[in-house]
């Protein structure tokens, strides 16, 4: 599998949680067109795996049940986005330097 348990296959295909089978298939075909296997093999495989999970109700359900890891560090709850990096001027930096 090219998708992790904690990843939402719906997000990979870009469909809503209550999307119908037809919508899911439509989204899958659209994504495949955008990421053909010869040009984007890794992305294509992720899309294909996400679709494979969603098209089979049993696998879809199992993914739902198992897609939470109670042992994972709490830090994983934070979305993986790059934190901001604001320019503050030298003052707060110098305060740290002056703090023994």
């Amino acid at each position: 599998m090219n998708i992790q348990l904690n990843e939402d296959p719906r997000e990979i295909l870009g469909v809503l949680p209550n999307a119908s089978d037809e919508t899911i298939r439509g989204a899958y075909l659209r994504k495949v067109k955008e990421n053909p296997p010869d040009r984007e093999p890794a992305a294509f495989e992720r899309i294909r795996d996400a679709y494979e999970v969603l098209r089979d109700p049993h696998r879809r359900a199992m993914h739902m049940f198992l897609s939470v890891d109670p042992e994972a560090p709490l830090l994983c709850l934070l979305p993986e986005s790059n934190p901001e990096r604001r320019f503050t001027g030298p003052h707060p930096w110098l305060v740290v330097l002056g703090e023994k």
Partner: protein
Amino acid sequence: MRVLLAKGKTRPAVELAKEIHKRYDSPKTEALLVDAYAARIRSLLETGLKKEARELFELVQQRYSCGRARLAEIGVLVSASEGKLEELLRLLSDPALPRERRRAIENAVKSLVSDLNALSECAVLASDHPLRTAAAALLRAFTAVTAGPVEPSTLELPEVSHRSPLASWKILVRAIEYFYQENDAACDRCLELIDPDSPPARLIPALRSMLGARTEERLKPAANSLVTEVCGDKASLRRALQELDSAIETKILGKILPEIERATATCEVACPELLERLRQHISVRALQLDLPTRKVRAAMGGASIKNAYFWRLFARSVESSRKPFGLLICALWEQFRRHAVAEGWFAENSPEAAALYLHMAQFLLELPVETLEVLQRDFAAEFSGFHAFYEDQPPGIRAVQAKYKKNDLYFLSPGSLFERACRIDPRREAFEQWWQWAREQESDWRIADYVAECWHRALPNHSQPLLYLMESAQKRGALNKATEALEQAQKLDALNPEVRRAALRLLVAQTGRHLRQRKPHLVEKDLAALEALPQARAADGAAFLVALRWACETIRGNSELASGFLSQIGGLLGSSAAAILACQTAGRLGGLTHADFDRLLPQRVSVDSEGSLASVTARVCTLAGEVGANFTIPTAWQELLLQELTNRPSKLDVRQLDMLGRAALGRNQREIAYAASAAGLAIEGGAEARFLLLRARALPEWEAERRSDCIAAAAALGRGQQDMSTVKEAVELWRGRCSNARKNVLDWLESEDWDEFSMTTEQIDAVLQHEKHCRAFPPDRYARSRTPFAEAGYVNEAENDDKPFSLADIAQLVAGMSQVLEKRQRKARRDRDLAAAEQGELF
């Protein structure tokens, strides 16, 4: 004292020096004492205790005559640490300053100067002194790099050489530049290069935190503020969560509670939408660690919401604990199901619900049948729901619980779970699992029949349930019902190999019954029907039909005709020994006895040149398997067969050896089964899993550990070789082993069976090589202890030395018993804790 100073133990060094000086009171000891004080003052400066350093410095100067001279250098450092760089730097203006002294002052500048502005404006140095120009350039670059994007030329800083006492500052400026350019790897490399004793090193934890790295040490308040100012509140939350994770790893309540408080408070400010989820995760972690509920709840600032997300998390947490809490897991998944349906995750009768029922059933199947029955009774008697979890919950959550006022404990029964799953989402896999479970309920065949009937009704195009019904009816002797089921299966898919084989077996069974009923005319009809079946004539099937005719004529008393059939079978199978075995198999099916065989069949067996006794036996054994007849290896052949299998390289193929081994096991002829497994393991070609499993079955009871290893290795190898039937058989054997070997429920619960049933590649290889090497059946190690007393009395002392039950053995046995006792006590404690978690200590 020097040794103490070298180890950085300045306080005891001073104490020792004082003692020495008190006793000897000489200029030498005074100098020694002043040196100790100097080291102590330096140490105070390094730890930031400037005031204390100054007071001690002045005291020593006043008290000891040699103090002023010996403490001159340290005095400069004390002043420098107070921001009075002049005293320190003034010395640098002296061109005659010795090189060592200059280097010492530069080192002091490197470790003490944290104010670039003061250095750049230090009046005791010439305005073009390299230190002043370097400090000014660094200050400009530092201001620029923290204020906005900069031109690369701004940060070139030719004024600061890599040997300069301010070189670490230059690296710091670079690190900050890379940080803002989001070149984290380069930033990290720069941080590695900063001298850890220099003031720029004080920014390393904050910068690492801003890079998202996990650091063990807690940030100081100023560093925390910097991180928040630069990266926003989420960086603080990240840091708080990291620290909470670290605290949880320690499992110490006193460390965890403050971190919970800090993390939830930070989360409320930085990311309020995440707060509820964080509380739920903390609650489940606390349950895992068995932390006091009220305290955790207070630290979180309120109870977590017990919605579907929480129950799923809790259920997964108990699942991942790999403890045999099958019933509790099912109860938790049931809670999840209720809330998930109420919250619209899926509908009550959706495929998701069916998948959940199957998932729950798997946990119950892990428990041996008798254990499950005991646990079901206990659980039903004690379980009163999860009421305590619903304290302080919003009305919407409480309403879900209220909807199910009566405890429906359907989730304790695999049968109910399977039935619900199959009713909602009738799939082959689900019915197969249900039927497999039902078939194991040996006490009542009607359960399996009920499942097969449900399957047939739900999926009428499947031939499998019909074949199951046929087989079940055939076993009970209800041949008409069996024939009815077979006819339906044939209508669906007459070409299906399973259906064809079933038809052959049913007709053979019917022939056997007519033979036993001594109705030769009906046997004739059956044989005619059998001959019409193409599958009955395939391979050695024709020989078996003649064997049935032999049995029929024997029953009729027509020994001449029977003898002719015997010869015909010999011709078809190419061996008189094979003919005898085929006749015995058919005769046993028709109710003939050993006495009949002794009377009617030749007693001397000759094996033809083309085949060994083993290959003949395997051939007929395979034939019997095809037609569904019981096969027995004649007792008189055992010795010879064993010799052949053990001593000669086998010409048998994998299937023949497997069949032979299974037939031997069926009659408890373990040594033959063992020899067949040895021959099978010697064959290269990917059937090792199957023969390891045969080896496991063939091993005697006293080789329990070896047996477990073989089963586990067979399952692992089977998975690798895609031999799923072997894997399934191994798992069933393992579960059977557990239930047979440990009758006591508590003993079973204490076992580490869950962990044992997995092996590394190296372990598998070791087991395989060991079993390949052990070709001989293991000797009975306790045989000597069963030696009659009179005989044992004459055994000489040397032989008695290693008798099985020595004092050491008994001591070992007692030690083992105490371990079991300890395990049992641990189990009792765990149960108490679990009960507390279920009933009261809830979040």
